[in-house]
C-alpha cells in the first residue's frame, strides 16, 4: 500500500470496508444475516464474535468473496466488491483447518501468493524470510506441512496470508484446533503481529476470551444481527443488552419489574419482593419487565455500608468451588439458588461453609437493567 493511498484514506474519513444493508439467505426462507451495516477501519483488529449459526462466518465469507450477498453491497476502499472475484480482492485469509498445500514445502506455500501477485523473484526471498521470521519459523522452509505440528502449521498459514501484504487479513477461527495453552500463547503473538504489520485484521471466533484478548473492537453477532459493536472493555463492562451480557463473561441474571424510573437509576422489584436499584440501559419506563445483569466480581462479599455499596442483601452459602486463584461461591438469594460470586484467594473470605449467612452488596451503577430477553 503506497503512502499516497494512505493519506487519501485518512483524508476522506472513509472506512476501509463498509457493509451496506447486507442480507444473506442460503435457502430463500431464513435470513442468516439480517440487514448488516458495519464499517471496518483501516488497521484495526476487529473480531466477529457469536455462537455458531449467528452469521459471523457468513459475513466473513461474503467479505472474502466465497459467498454472494443476497441483498446490499460490500464496499472496499470506496469500490463495490459485488463483481470482484475472490482472487482480485487483495484479501488474505487464514482458514480454520489452515488449508496449507500439502504437496508444497513451507517455502513454496509462501511463494505461491507472491507468484500470483507477480512479485519479482529477487524480492520473493526477502519477503518469505521476513514473514517466516515474524511467525518465528525461520529454518522451516524445506519442511512440508505434514512435518509440522498444529501450532507450526497455524503459523505458516498466518505467514502465507501476510506475505503478499494484502489490504485485509481474514481469520476464521484459526486457533480452534490448538490446545488451550498454545491457543493463549498464539493470541498474544497474533496481537503483536497485528501491531507490527499494521494491517486490518478481521477475526471470527466463538470464544469470548479470545475476542477480549486480541481485539480493538468486537462485533457480537446473534441471530444474524450485530448485537453490540464496541471495544472489549466497553463490551464487558457496559453490555447493551441481555444477550451480550450473558454471552460475554459470567453474569448473574435477575428478572424483575421496574417500579420507579429515572435517568441514571431505576428501582426494580423482583418476584421475591426485594427491590434493587440499577442503572437503566435499555429499558424505557415504569412497569416494564427487565433483566438485571450483575457480574460475579462486582459483588462485594461480607459487605458493610461503608464499602460504598448501594444495595446490601443477606444470602445463604450453598456451595463453594475451589478454582485456584479464586473460589466460586453459589448463593441462595432473592428466592433463587444460582447466584454466583467470585471470592479472590487471600480476601479473607476463604472459609465459607454451606448454610452460612453472608452479606452481599454492590454499587447500583454495576447492576445493569437490560431488556427482558
Amino acid at each position: 500500500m503506497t503512502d499516497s493511498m494512505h493519506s487519501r484514506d485518512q483524508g476522506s474519513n472513509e472506512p476501509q470496508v463498509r457493509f451496506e444493508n447486507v442480507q444473506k439467505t442460503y435457502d430463500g426462507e431464513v435470513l442468516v444475516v439480517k440487514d448488516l451495516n458495519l464499517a471496518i477501519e483501516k488497521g484495526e483488529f476487529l473480531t466477529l464474535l457469536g455462537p455458531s449459526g449467528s452469521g459471523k462466518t457468513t459475513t466473513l465469507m461474503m467479505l472474502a468473496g466465497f459467498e454472494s450477498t443476497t441483498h446490499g453491497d460490500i464496499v472496499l476502499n470506496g469500490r463495490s466488491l459485488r463483481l470482484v472475484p475472490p482472487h482480485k480482492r487483495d484479501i488474505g485469509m487464514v482458514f480454520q483447518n489452515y488449508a496449507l498445500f500439502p504437496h508444497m514445502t513451507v517455502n513454496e506455500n509462501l511463494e505461491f501468493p507472491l507468484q500470483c501477485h507477480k512479485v519479482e523473484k529477487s524480492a520473493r526471498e526477502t519477503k518469505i524470510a521476513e514473514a517466516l521470521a515474524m511467525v518465528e519459523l525461520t529454518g522451516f522452509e524445506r519442511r512440508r506441512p505434514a512435518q509440522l505440528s498444529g501450532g507450526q502449521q497455524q503459523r505458516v498459514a498466518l505467514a502465507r496470508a501476510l506475505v503478499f501484504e494484502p489490504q485485509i487479513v481474514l481469520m476464521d477461527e484459526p486457533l480452534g484446533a490448538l490446545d488451550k495453552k498454545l491457543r493463549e500463547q498464539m493470541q498474544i503473538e497474533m496481537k503483536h503481529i497485528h501491531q507490527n504489520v499494521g494491517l486490518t485484521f478481521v477475526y471470527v471466533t466463538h470464544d469470548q476470551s479470545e475476542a477480549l484478548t486480541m481485539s480493538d473492537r468486537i462485533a457480537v453477532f446473534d441471530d444474524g444481527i450485530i448485537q453490540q459493536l464496541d471495544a472489549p472493555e466497553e463490551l464487558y463492562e457496559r453490555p447493551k443488552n441481555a444477550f451480550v451480557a450473558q454471552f460475554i463473561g459470567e453474569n448473574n441474571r435477575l428478572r424483575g419489574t421496574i417500579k420507579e424510573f429515572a435517568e441514571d437509576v431505576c428501582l426494580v422489584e423482583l418476584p421475591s419482593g426485594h427491590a434493587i436499584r440499577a442503572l437503566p440501559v435499555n429499558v424505557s419506563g415504569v412497569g416494564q419487565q427487565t433483566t438485571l445483569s450483575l457480574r460475579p466480581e462486582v459483588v462485594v462479599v461480607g459487605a458493610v455500608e461503608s464499602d460504598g455499596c448501594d444495595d446490601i442483601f443477606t444470602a445463604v452459602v450453598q456451595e463453594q468451588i475451589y478454582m485456584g486463584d479464586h473460589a466460586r461461591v453459589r448463593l441462595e438469594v432473592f428466592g433463587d439458588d444460582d447466584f454466583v460470586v467470585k471470592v479472590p484467594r487471600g480476601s479473607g473470605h476463604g472459609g465459607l461453609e454451606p448454610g452460612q449467612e453472608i452479606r452481599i452488596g454492590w454499587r447500583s451503577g454495576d447492576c445493569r437493567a437490560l431488556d427482558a430477553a
Partner: protein
Amino acid sequence: MVATTGSHDVMRTADGVPLKIKLRRAERMRKVWAIALVAPLFLFLVVGFILPIISLLALSVEDPDLTSGFPRTAEVFQEWDGEGFPSPEAMATFAEELSVAERGQFGRAAKRLNYDISGFKSMVKKTARQSEQLALLPLDQIHDGFIKIDKDWGDPAYWYAIKNASSYYTDYYLLWSLDLQRDQEREIVGVSPDRAIYVDVLLRTIEISFAVTLLCFLLGLPIAYLLATLPTRISNLLLILVLLPFWTSLLVRTTSWLVLLQNEGLINDLALWLGLWNEPQELIRNRFGVYVAMVHILLPFMVLPMYSVMKTINPWHMRAAASLGAPGWKAFLKVYFPQCMPGVAAGTLLVFILSLGYYITPALVGGPGDQMVSYWIVQNMGQTANWGLGAALSCVLLLLTLVMFFIYNRFVGVDRLKVN
C-alpha cells in the same frame, strides 16, 4: 521398567526370561497367523500365474518339432557348419529317417520347416514318398537323388532351413516375433517385407493403448472431479452410473457397440434422419470403433482411482488459493491437480496396461488393421497352432508391459500410487 543389574546384562522380564525371547514368543503366534492367511493366495498365484508364465517363457525358446520328428537328422545337422551343402552322410541320415518315419511323426516337423520357406512342407512330403529308393542310393549320388525328386534341393537355403530347426533351444520364434531372422551367416537380419507384420502390430498396440489412455484421462478427469465435489447424495448416484458397466459382461458391452455403430445401426440411422450426413458412415471395423468401445469399457478404471484421491483433497484448498490471488485455472493447475497425481498415475497406468493386452474388443469392432498383439497371440496359439510364435509374442507383450511400467516409474514414480 524392569531393572537391569549391569549395563552388559540382557534385559529381562519379571520372571527372568530375556526380553527378546519373550517378545519373539509373543510375536510367533501372529506370524503363523499371517502366513496362514496369505498361503492360499500365494499358492494360487504360483499355480495360476507364475508357473504359466514360466512355461510360456520356456515355450518361446523351445523348438521341439524337428528334434522329435527326425532326432538323428537334427543331431547331424547341428554339427554341420551351414556352409554350402551338408555332407552326403548327413543327407543320407535325413533320407533314412524320412523313409522309416510314420506320416504323423514328421507332420509337425514338416510344418516347422514350412515356417522358414513356404512350400517346404509339401516338398518334404513329396520326398518322403520316394525316400525308400533315396535311402538306398550310394553317398556320392544322394544329393542328386534329392534334386531328382525336387530341384529345390539344389538350393542350399532348404538345407540350411533344416539346420536352423535342428536345435532344441532357439531364438527363432523370439526373433520372428520382432520380424527378424538369422541368415546363413547366423547374423540377425530383418525378414522379407511381405512377412514383416509384428513390429507394426506392436507399434499399433502401443499407439492404441496410448490414445485410449489419453482419451480416458480427458473424459475421466471432469467426471472424477464432479463426483468428488458434488453433494454425497448426487455423487453416489453418479458413482453407480460409473460402476454400472462393471455389472455387464465385456462381450455384451462390446457387441452393443457393434449394434449401435454398424452401417444400419442406431447412430447412423439417427444421423441420417437428422441429416447430419447423407450416406451411412463407416463407424465400425475401423480405428474409430476400437477407440469408442475401448474408452467406454476402460473409463471406470480411470475414474475410480482419480475419484478416490480427489475425495481426500481438502475443498478449502481451492478457496485458499483464490484468497492468495490465484484465478480458478491457476488454483486448479497448481494446487488441485498436483494433489490428484497419485490417482491420475494409478488410473493411467491401469488403463494403459489393460489396453496393451486387449483382445476381444478390437477383434469384434476393429478392422484387420486394428488388431493388437493379443489377437496375433490367439491366432498363433489357436488357429495356426504355432505355439512357439504365440509364446514368443506373449513374451514380447509381457516385456513391453514391464518396460512401460519402468518408464512410467521413472517419470511418475509408482510410490506415488497411494490409492486410499
